[in-house]
């Protein structure tokens, strides 16, 4: 149990570091943020694998992803990636995640950094459905449909990989693109995600999204592979995504099932009746409603940034 609390605390601290790094002088430090993301991933793994909350890992340690999942990934190895592939613009007005929305608890980092190529195996591997994939999927569809995306859908971001290799704007990937179109395999419809995304901010971002609505957008980065020399931008936009993913989804982690309502939180509370009200950061965190209350504004703050 201590591990879980410790992990919980470490995740919060790590999120804070990533958040703060965006305003540091001199730009985002890639090395430090990489290390923080590794810690974040380890802590999340522990957190999810600890069965004490009756959470997703109740059956034991997280199962490794299926071997066919990722062409880049070794079987059984957690994805080493950074986060959701879709960049996010920090300067864009971000709608705070409504309390009622169902931000699916994100998957383990297993697939976090990767564009999931087969959705369903991942869902089975992890009891927790993967929110970022959902967003990507919806974006895929949106991207495939062009820019007239429904207002409440996820961003119209093109497939990250496609964009970088110069895929056409309407989502038809190039043959050598390496990213496969998402099969519409009967996954539940994507969650309502009012968050807008576009070209990410501080780091320049690897690509720009085509946001829906009338908000001003930065022009998406050029499609072609980056030119050598001074035109290349430091790709740290993924850091922002990491914050988004972890920040928003972390509160969802404490729910038992996707889209679960408050009754799940109460259920958790019942499991831990002895726990007193938690202390504020950086004190020990307890799996309790006050914790969730504290987490939500935290994730909201990150998103709003």
């Amino acid at each position: 149990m201590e591990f879980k609390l410790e992990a919980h605390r470490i995740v919060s601290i790590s999120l804070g570091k990533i958040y703060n790094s965006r305003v540091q002088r001199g730009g985002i430090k890639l090395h430090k943020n990489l290390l923080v993301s590794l810690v974040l991933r380890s802590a999340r793994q522990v957190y999810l694998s600890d069965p004490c909350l009756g959470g997703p890992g109740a059956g034991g340690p997280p199962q490794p992803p299926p071997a066919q999942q990722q062409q880049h990934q070794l079987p059984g190895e957690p994805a080493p990636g950074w986060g959701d592939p879709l960049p996010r613009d920090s300067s864009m007005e971000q709608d705070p995640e409504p309390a009622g929305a169902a931000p699916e608890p994100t998957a383990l980092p297993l697939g976090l950094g990767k564009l999931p190529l087969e959705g369903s195996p991942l869902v089975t591997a992890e009891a927790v459905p993967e929110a970022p994939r959902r967003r990507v999927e919806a974006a895929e569809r949106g991207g495939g449909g062009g820019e007239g995306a429904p207002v409440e859908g996820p961003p119209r971001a093109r497939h990250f990989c496609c964009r970088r290799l110069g895929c056409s704007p309407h989502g038809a990937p190039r043959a050598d693109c390496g990213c496969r179109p998402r099969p519409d395999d009967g996954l539940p419809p994507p969650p309502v995600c009012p968050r807008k995304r576009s070209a990410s901010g501080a780091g320049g971002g690897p690509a720009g999204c085509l946001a829906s609505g009338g908000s001003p957008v930065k022009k998406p980065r050029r499609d072609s592979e980056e030119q050598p020399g001074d035109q290349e931008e430091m790709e740290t936009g993924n850091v922002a995504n990491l914050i988004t993913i972890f920040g928003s989804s972390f509160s969802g982690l404490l729910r038992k099932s996707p889209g679960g309502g408050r009754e799940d939180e109460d259920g958790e509370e019942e499991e831990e009746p002895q726990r007193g009200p938690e202390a504020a950061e950086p004190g020990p965190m307890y799996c309790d409603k006050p914790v969730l209350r504290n987490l939500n504004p935290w994730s909201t703050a990150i998103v709003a940034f």
Partner: protein
Amino acid sequence: MEGESIYEVDSEDGVGADIISTVEFNHTGELLATGDKGGRVVIFQREPESKNEPHSQGEYNVYSTFQSHEPEFDYLKSLEIEEKINKIKWLPQQNAAHSLLSTNDKTIKLWKVTERDKRPEGYNLKDEEGKLKDLSTVTSLQVPVLKPMDLMVEVSPRRIFANGHTYHINSISVNSDCETYMSADDLRINLWHLAITDRSFNIVDIKPANMEDLTEVITASEFHPHHCNLFVYSSSKGSLRLCDMRASALCDKHSKLFEEPEDPSNRSFFSEIISSVSDVKFSHSGRFMLTRDYLTVKVWDLNMETKPIETYQVHDYLRSKLCSLYENDCIFDKFECAWNGSDSVIMTGAYNNFFRMFDRNTKRDVTLEASRESSKPRAILKPRRVCVGGKRRKDDISVDSLDFTKKILHTAWHPAENIIAIAATNNLYIFQDKVNSEMH
């Protein structure tokens, strides 16, 4: 060791800019350069031994101070570029002038340091103040002569190597061929020619096609001291890669990979962070490499890739405190390491203004403190001890009372003598071992 402390800057206008960020002796040890967070470089010169006081070997005094880098703003990316000097490397001296390379996160500059101690006098057309003479008053011609003047040290930027790096430069290293040097950032290493600023040659690129696949970054790199084709770079995963530039143009494939398997009993959330190598240094002989990670220094034999030949614990008592050190960011501190001239002793910094030395032959180690008390002239440094519970001796410091804001990240050892330079925040300490001046 005796102490002499110099270069303490009053920090009334903010400590930040005066924090020393790099220290480097030149190849003879006559000059010592420091860079700071404010982009300034200060060069100290060792006074020649005077016959009057044979016991006092030369002291280091300020020789020159100049502003190397200024803060910049990249408008295109909305990024501020810090002026902090990350590294200084001296070029081997080839004439009367001294040259050094200094770098911040993005730009490397070659500075030439020259002395002027003579001044021409007796011009025909100009008078002493430089005003043109009335030609009608000139009745005879004279040849200007050089007259001695007060020594003036002039520093001028000779080359500016810009736009070579997208990520933050962490190291530079001059090749033994004295013509080229390399600069390394988080993901790439470039090879430059000292005379050519408008292009560089990329020799290592570990940037993945998809940044989400990023798992490690380059943390330090150095050329071999004798073989101009060999260099090493360290990674955040704790591995070292020795590369041979003769093997291929792009040295992404290493010639040798030095890696020690992780000890599973020490696994924690922070195992990856503490295994990241913060500094790598070839020995003077070129046979060994010294690496520093958060808790240890390791000596590697170039002929053995599987594990280091020696491992020294710098401050293992911190192992149980990694979570707190993660919280206060101390776990990300990048300590440097240094060899002495004969490669028999290695040195590295720690917290509480402590620094550690390990004698490879006798296996003895010592902890010393860089502080005002210890640095009065002729004061002898007293070995310090950190107690980790159990019997506590007088003058021991307990782990919990260590001051983690006082960290010694940068140290340098004179190439030939037992003189060390220790940077403690905004103070520079120079210690000499007068008893054992000779290297052994």
